[in-house]
């Protein structure tokens, strides 16, 4: 999808500027999430502190991009795909900011968890969930950067996997808490981290929905994946069918 080619060169620059700021913000958020997970898995308190203290940069970025969007709406009255870009960006950055908040929460819990390395048993399950969520986040940002609705719809399908991992981990934590009541506090913190990871996955999927809206002009929120696929991506289904056989 082309952003440029307006008669007004300045307008091209303004839209491109907004887009590149979103990518920059996406990069910052991804790094925050990665570092938060690292600090959690490696009991790295200094890194957790760093994540917690860097969240304000993301908040500022959100406000700056929102201001840019308002300015473009007021001055250019964007229409069609330009309008969809501005609206999608304004929504994407809200989700990015929330992801930043979740990363901050993970960092705060991991700071506390780092003192007591008791909940080690969950390490591999937590690592698994983290990896899955970070991949989804990375791919969503990639789909946004390339404005690729096909990739976006694929990511929407990974929802069930995250839920499965999250449920698994929750079950393990419950068992652990029953066996070791002294460590309930720590186990709850791990559970909250898992919850934050699950939320990050949800926000990343929202971003994918906005990518589809941006390129295809269709609002696919609150729509089943099957419906989205059959209605807007019939080509994908044809490609996949032979594999299923």
């Amino acid at each position, binding site marked *: 999808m082309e952003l440029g080619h*307006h*008669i007004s060169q300045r307008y091209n620059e303004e839209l491109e500027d907004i887009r590149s700021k979103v990518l920059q913000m996406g990069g910052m958020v991804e790094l925050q999430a990665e570092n938060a997970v690292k600090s959690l898995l490696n009991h790295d308190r200094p890194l957790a502190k760093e994540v917690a203290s860097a969240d304000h940069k993301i908040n500022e970025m959100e406000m700056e991009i929102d201001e840019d969007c308002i300015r473009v709406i007021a001055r250019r009255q964007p*229409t*069609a795909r330009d*309008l969809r870009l501005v609206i999608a960006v304004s929504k994407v950055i809200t989700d990015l900011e929330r992801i930043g908040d979740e990363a901050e929460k993970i960092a705060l819990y991991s700071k506390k968890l780092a003192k007591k390395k008791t909940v080690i048993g969950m390490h591999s399950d937590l690592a698994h969930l983290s990896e899955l969520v970070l991949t989804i986040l990375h791919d969503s940002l990639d789909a946004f950067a390339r404005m690729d609705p096909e990739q976006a719809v694929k990511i929407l399908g990974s929802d069930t996997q995250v839920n499965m991992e999250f449920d698994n981990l929750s079950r393990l934590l419950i068992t652990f808490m029953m066996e070791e009541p002294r460590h309930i506090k720590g186990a709850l913190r791990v559970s909250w981290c898992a919850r934050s990871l699950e939320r990050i996955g949800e926000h990343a999927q929202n971003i994918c929905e906005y990518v589809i809206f941006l390129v295809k002009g269709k609002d696919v929120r609150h729509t089943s994946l099957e419906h989205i696929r059959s209605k807007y991506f019939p080509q994908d289904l044809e490609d996949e069918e032979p594999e299923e056989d």
Partner: protein
Amino acid sequence: MIDISKRSEFDIEIKGTVGKPFVNNPKMSSRNCDVFYGDKQAIFDVNLDIANNEIIAMIGPSGCGKSTYLRVLNRMNDTIPICKVTGEHTLDGEDIYAKKQDPVLLRARVGMVFQKPNPFPKSIYDNVAYGARLHGLASNRAELDEVVESSLIKAGLFKEVKDDLNKPGTGLSGGQQQRLCIARAIAVDPEVILMDEPTSALDPIATALIEELMDELKENYTIAIVTHSMQQAARVSQRTAYFHLGKLVEVNETDKVFTNPEHQLTENYITGRFG
């Protein structure tokens, strides 16, 4: 500088009209409309319905044929000797180009408001009363007074001019003059009002007043408006028709045209792109 020969819009082929050019039970309707000025063809095979009580906006770059098409609808092109109009054009299912059709009566049913306010050099009262007198719509002075007053009220001008009805219409401000022209068009009780860039000579406040007026008028009339302001088309119309190089490219609900148009050329035009 933009090199016009490199504009890719000339490479995009227009195959018929996309979207929804047809409606059930149309007020006006055109089929296979071609218009020629001498040897030059200005409009190519336009097929379009205009629904009852809708405002349809016609947009497109200069020279795309939108004004020419508007003038087809009340036979204003008859006044241009070299102009030839073909195809079928109906108002309530009746052929408006039929031999028995009197163009003067047609123009009473299909009124027109132009870009530049053009009141007659007469009093405000006489400007509005002119058409009613011509078509014998009032049998005495009291009836004529009523026609003038109700037309001025509908055009949203009465309050401003009620004490100055005998003053010349040309003494009003631009926006007031345009509303006077609308009152004049309404006075003959038309069914359709054609507006050819009615606000392009007006300031934003006068424009807003006319747009508000259009919204009220659509309760009783069908309105077709040609406009260069896309925001105006987006604000006032229910459907939008995009013309390009004499062809009707796309007709769709205005909401759709401005958020997710079907045709690439429509998108390029409304987003301010050249290729």
